[in-house]
């Protein structure tokens, strides 16, 4: 028993240490959001940059001296702060008034660019950092060894919290920051220079992210996957704590780090005759907390309701039914696509199949985002669960691929029905975060459930027998199913359901006043969207022959968002185009250079900066000028 106590105590201290760097990142994210209303997707990338920069700078300044180590950490954080300033001036300043989705896309482009920059300068290998001089040892606590450095980290969180509090509550600058966070009109009345305020807040936020990263150098290796891992953690912390609340971020970081640590400490516990593996819950627990908080206290623990009503619908143009030539023309395109691989080009066959699958995926996401106004950050969950359902039915139940493909939309739809029930209770950024949380839960379940899903190795041997064995036939089946799905969703957008869905997005109060059950309509939209994403996932599984947890990872969700935003949320055909261009580009650039992400990122940035009000807005202005 005292063993367990010592375990728990050590893990508690571990939790405190983990909370500190989580808090630093989240505080920066929260500050930036509070003042600029930008959800900075690139915040995790800034953290990662801090870690890599610290690695190099400490090396440069001298690993073994105190000054070298701490100088390196501080210099790394300052560099990241400076990079934040450049980002703010060059990119974000131009899009403060753009739709939220565009801001997200721009910061996501930064994620891509930073990732490739890191790849370019530091390579793909994990880098083990130096230990802090003077803090290399461990102290003994109840017979367990606890790293000295972690004790220092435990102090860092509250220290930064205190400094931030002083900055925000005891300085003139703090008044401006708080005014901007709480009351825009008051900010205007204070007559401050908004531009300088925004830039400086970006510096501060980026600095904190960089510091959070740099301080981790003795604890975890620098690696390229940190950006997305950290940003989803930071999102969770900010949402749980309340957007824009620093104290909330601290509380949430503590809560989440402790919950994780407790799961590790408990390990496998036998309860009521079965073994409950708490350690496997570590990946899920934070998202479970977030889901619970969002449902019970939608504004977070210490947050206040913010006017986030900048839905995609506010400025949307009417969605007219397609003209008489649209369907015939689409049919001709479809036939041409079907004929394309007859030349026997295997590569083309694979690429076109991918495009078909991702077009359906993107259209299903657009169905939620556009007409529904419900931005899903975790759409890959439905795609991936569809893949896994199809694969499991095929492998474990030994049913033919045709039957397995039926399971895919059912699984996707069922998952969306479950997750959607919670999600439709929220809106805006909060809804997006909850979808992300559910997707992460789904991902970690798949990732850890070795017996069923093969864990991180995934499942292999998904080659259909029978009619679908032939790759060209399989491609045609894919094309028909994807086109059919897209056709169905498009019809639905123009059907009374689509009208009700747009009504609920445009003006929920009015929609309810004409008898529309807005939540139910949105819930059904979730289910439909999830079902078709699931179908796309099922088709993907048999096209590739194997699947891994990546099929439902954050990166795939983000791909979907990029496709939709690239093509334009305002039109129905946009997502198909976006999916085609994105998939092709990714494939084309990836074959020629290692740095396809950066190229894609720059392309997205160029697009966003050229059309800060969205492609739809740009078209409107063109028409207005004509």
């Amino acid at each position, binding site marked *: 028993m005292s063993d367990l106590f010592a375990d728990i105590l050590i893990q508690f201290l571990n939790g405190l240490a983990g909370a500190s760097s989580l808090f630093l990142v989240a505080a920066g994210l929260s500050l930036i959001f509070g003042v600029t209303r930008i959800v900075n997707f690139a915040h995790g990338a800034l953290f990662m940059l801090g870690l890599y920069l610290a690695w190099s700078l400490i090396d440069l300044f001298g690993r073994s001296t105190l000054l070298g180590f701490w100088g390196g950490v501080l210099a790394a954080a300052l560099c990241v702060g400076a990079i934040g300033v450049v980002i703010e001036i060059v990119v974000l300043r131009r899009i403060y008034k753009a739709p939220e989705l565009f801001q997200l896309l721009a910061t996501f482009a930064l994620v891509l660019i930073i990732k490739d920059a890191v790849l370019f300068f530091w390579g793909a290998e994990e880098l083990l950092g130096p230990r802090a001089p003077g803090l290399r040892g461990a102290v003994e606590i109840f017979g367990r060894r606890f790293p000295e450095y972690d004790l220092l980290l435990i102090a860092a969180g509250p220290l930064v919290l205190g400094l931030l509090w002083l900055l925000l509550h005891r300085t003139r600058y703090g008044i401006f920051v708080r005014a901007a966070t709480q009351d825009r009109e008051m900010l205007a009345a204070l007559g401050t220079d908004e531009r300088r305020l925004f830039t400086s807040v970006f510096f501060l936020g980026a600095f904190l992210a960089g510091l959070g990263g740099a301080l981790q150098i003795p604890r975890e290796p620098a690696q390229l996957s940190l950006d997305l891992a950290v940003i989803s953690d930071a999102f969770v912390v900010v949402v749980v704590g309340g957007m824009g609340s620093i104290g909330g971020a601290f509380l949430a970081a503590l809560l989440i780090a402790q919950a994780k640590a407790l799961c590790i400490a408990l390990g496998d516990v036998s309860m009521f005759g079965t073994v409950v593996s708490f350690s496997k819950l570590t990946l899920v627990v934070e998202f479970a907390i977030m889901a619970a908080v969002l449902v019970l206290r939608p504004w977070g623990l210490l947050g206040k309701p913010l006017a986030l009503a900048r839905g995609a*619908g*506010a*400025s*949307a*143009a*009417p*969605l007219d*039914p397609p003209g008489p030539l649209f369907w015939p023309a689409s049919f001709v395109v479809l036939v041409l696509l079907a004929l394309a691989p007859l030349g026997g080009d295997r590569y083309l066959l694979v690429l076109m199949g991918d495009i078909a699958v991702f077009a359906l995926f993107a259209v299903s996401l657009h169905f939620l985002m556009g007409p529904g106004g419900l931005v899903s950050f975790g759409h890959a969950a439905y795609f991936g669960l569809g893949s896994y359902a199809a694969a499991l039915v095929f492998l474990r139940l030994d049913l033919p691929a045709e039957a397995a493909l039926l399971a895919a939309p059912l699984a996707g739809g069922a998952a969306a029905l479950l997750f959607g029930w919670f999600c439709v209770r929220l809106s805006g950024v909060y809804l997006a975060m909850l979808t992300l949380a559910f997707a992460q839960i789904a991902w970690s379940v798949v990732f850890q459930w070795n017996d069923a899903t093969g864990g991180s190795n995934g499942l292999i041997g998904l080659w259909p027998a029978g009619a679908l064995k032939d790759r060209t036939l399989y491609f045609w089946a894919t094309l028909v199913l994807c086109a059919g799905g897209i056709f*169905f969703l498009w*019809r*639905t957008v*123009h*059907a*009374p*359901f*689509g*009208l*009700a869905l*747009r*009504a609920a*997005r*445009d*003006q929920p*109060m*009015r*929609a*309810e*006043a*004409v*008898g*529309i*059950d807005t939540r139910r*309509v949105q819930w*059904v939209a979730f289910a*439909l969207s999830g079902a078709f994403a699931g179908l796309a996932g099922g088709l993907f599984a048999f096209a590739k022959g194997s699947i891994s947890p990546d099929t439902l990872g954050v990166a795939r969700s983000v791909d979907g968002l990029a496709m939709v935003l690239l093509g334009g949320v305002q039109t129905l055909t946009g997502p198909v185009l976006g999916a085609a261009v994105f998939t092709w580009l990714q494939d084309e650039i990836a074959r020629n250079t290692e740095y396809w992400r950066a190229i894609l990122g720059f392309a997205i940035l160029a697009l966003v900066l050229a059309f800060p009000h969205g492609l739809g807005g740009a078209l409107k202005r063109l028409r207005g000028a004509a």
Partner: protein
Amino acid sequence: MTLLVAHGLRKAFGGVEAVVDVGFAVAPGEVVALIGPNGAGKSTCFNMLNGQLAPDGGTIRLGGENIAGRPPRAIARLGVGRTFQITATFASMRVRENVQAALQSFAGKSYGLWRSADTLYRDEALALLARVGMEDQAERPCGTLAYGDLKRVELAVALAGRPRLLLMDEPTAGMAPVERLALMALTASLARREQIGVLFTEHDMDTVFAHADRILVLDRGRLIAEGSPDAVRNDPTVRRVYLGAGTMYGEQA
């Protein structure tokens, strides 16, 4: 029989008592004005009547049935139409589609996934728009309309549910005086012809006195006077409240 009977309604926001013990009735075909200075609690009353807010206390009987605390969509289906003080139309839709969305919802067709919505109840929608004089703007996106026109679209949308009771929160705000009188004249004639009870708020006293059968006066959440336009016009308390609030009102005696 009376259509709507509210009794003992109350609502507080934190410490602010927005509505205190308010009761009144509306008969079919009757046009009742609810007036009062800014912040008197008029919109709050409307929000309770159509279910947007649950009252802290009191009953709301519609045709004998207590509807207090039910959700707006349920109350809408019982025949309560409403327009909002800050116009709420579906901005991304064309004017006609706004009305169609309402018609389709009331007909229980909102879960149709396949059939085109474009033609479903199109004629009915155009007919409703003709009633409020918006037929020639039927194809314009709502996001591009002038404020006064939006108010008329809202009326058409509210009528789509064949209401027994119409709640109109400042239906003519932002309209020119002539338009204003015309819209209220239209509403009043509709109400009388189709036996719809109308409860409306309005800051323009000319409009109120021209069209209301009865007037309720609210001040700081309490009902301070009720009666015919003449009675209310000459009520000393009402005069004091309005003069005190600095609002002028048209003397046409």
